[in-house]
């Protein structure tokens, strides 16, 4: 058990965001977190990173409460890949990636040649080394997402918590991202990512967690959890889950599916 949330609750007095959420992340898993807008996905991810003071419950990393760990120690193990954002300052890509070395530095130590090598290796691995000196503000959304992943790798962390990494990426980049996750997973990285695409969860996740109104309503293998019933419960739309091949499924919205069938 790598990362465990025990009965965590968080929110404002008039509006609870997370209610009594418990989950376990095992090493080497890819977990997809599904849930409608406002269901508390981002809050849950940030709680697991120790960014909030929880109202109730606790989060354990490798058996130790993260609230008792130093932020710096935690940063060497768990990395946060935020949603693509518009940066205010045009730092170069390499400078953004080098920020990942900060948890390994004392106050006075400067970045060394070794730090630079680690950053270069991460950029190279994601095949974006050519972006090295480009301003972070002037690269595409997909490239920015990859830069943030490179920073997470540079951090030395092997557990990535990603907030809608596929959001805003074009179709090709979405597939590239998912392929990248599978590759990294084989090297021992663990991923917990939120997504708005049940298909993505069916394609690459080992496990799916469904969050609605701040509570987990399902947690299990994707082909068990992603069903017409659960998708209706989550999003209020009728969706059919079809088996294409052995253990490979896709979602097709029912109304659109039937309309298009009638045409042909």
């Amino acid at each position, binding site marked *: 058990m790598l990362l465990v949330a025990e009965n965590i609750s968080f929110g404002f007095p008039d509006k609870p965001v997370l209610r009594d959420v418990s989950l376990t992340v095992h090493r080497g898993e890819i977990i997809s977190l599904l849930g409608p807008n406002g269901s508390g996905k981002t809050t849950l991810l940030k709680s697991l990173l120790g960014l909030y003071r929880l109202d109730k419950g606790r989060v354990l990393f490798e058996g130790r409460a993260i609230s008792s760990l130093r932020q710096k120690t935690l*940063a060497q193990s768990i990395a946060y890949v935020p949603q693509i954002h518009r940066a205010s*300052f045009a730092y170069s890509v390499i400078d953004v990636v080098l920020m990942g070395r*900060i948890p390994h530095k004392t106050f006075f130590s400067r970045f060394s040649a070794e730090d630079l090598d680690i950053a270069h290796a991460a950029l190279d691995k994601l095949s974006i080394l050519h972006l090295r000196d480009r301003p972070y503000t002037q690269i595409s959304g997909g490239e920015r997402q990859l830069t943030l992943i490179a920073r997470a790798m540079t951090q030395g962390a092997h557990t990535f918590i990603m907030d809608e990494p596929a959001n805003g990426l074009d179709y090709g980049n979405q597939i590239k991202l998912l392929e990248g996750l599978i590759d990294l997973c084989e090297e021992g990285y663990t991923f917990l990512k939120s997504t708005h695409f049940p298909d993505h969860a069916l394609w690459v996740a080992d496990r799916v967690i469904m969050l609605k109104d701040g509570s987990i309503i399902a947690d299990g293998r994707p082909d068990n959890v992603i069903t017409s019933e659960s998708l209706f419960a989550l999003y209020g739309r009728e969706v059919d889950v079809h088996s294409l091949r052995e253990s490979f499924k896709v979602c097709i919205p029912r109304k659109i599916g039937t309309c298009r069938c009638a045409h042909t």
Partner: protein
Amino acid sequence: MSKNIWIPCLVFLLIFTVLFSLTLGKYEINLREIFAFLSASAGFGTMDEEKYALFSNILLDIRLPRIIAAALIGSALSVSGAAFQAMFINPLVSPALLGVLAGASFGAALGMIVSSSWFAVQAGAFVCGFLAVLIAVGIARLYRGDRLLMLILGGIISGALFTSLLSIVKYVADPYNQLPAIVYWLMGGLSLADGKTVLYVSVPICTGILCLLLFSRYLNILSMGDDEAKSLGINVTRIRMVLIFFATLISALTVVIGGLIGWVGLIIPHVARMLVGPDNRILMPVAALIGAIYLIVVDDVARMLFTVEIPLGIVTSLMGIPFFILVLKNARKGWA
């Protein structure tokens, strides 16, 4: 790193600006005489004793303190401006954001009406500058929510409070002696900068500037937002409070030496960013040097342009506004 070349270049330019500014004034002293004086005081050349005493008085007691004061104020405002812009992830904020300048202005004005001693004015400026920032931070801590937004709103409220208090002081001030003194002080100027004050104040200002420079790398990370900075292992709250402390310290001290000098802390970081980009590790020292050079030059203009000295704050605003319009061109490109 070719950008690093800017630092020695600017240091050289700063030294030249200081030497050149020493030659400016009613009594004409040229650069050669200054070098002769410097080598004489270092024990190398000799100089006519009477002339030496005169030069010593003009250069060391009158002109140099003022030049150093300008350099310190320029550096301090630029560095704290750059730090605030990174910390608040907003290139449009200035050191005045948390109310330090409004507080210090009120404190100085209060000092002027309650006491005739110069020390009361300086102490009032310093203490009230800090008080204003404390109030801003206190208001921000009242409620949960976005920390940066709460701090900015706290600063607006605190600034407004001290601006109103300043109006009260102006209203009750004696309109023949005290009111003009207050108004003149608020325009900013270095004519009252004496060697002793500058010497005393230079120690904390230099310390504050150096401490902010040490945090440059962390400023880059803070400018990515609180959540990312925390997930990178940074103790955001503590580092931000340390940065606010030093920025407030040096900004309040600029008011102690030279009154209210606007625009420098907003514009110089932009100039530095145009030269070397947004990486605070190089931006901060470059901003410090440009700020020093800029304010020495502006002070030269203020004291030399007309027979009567123009208040420094007026010149910095007048020179700042057209420049800021030029800088706006860069807003499109994400403040590259």
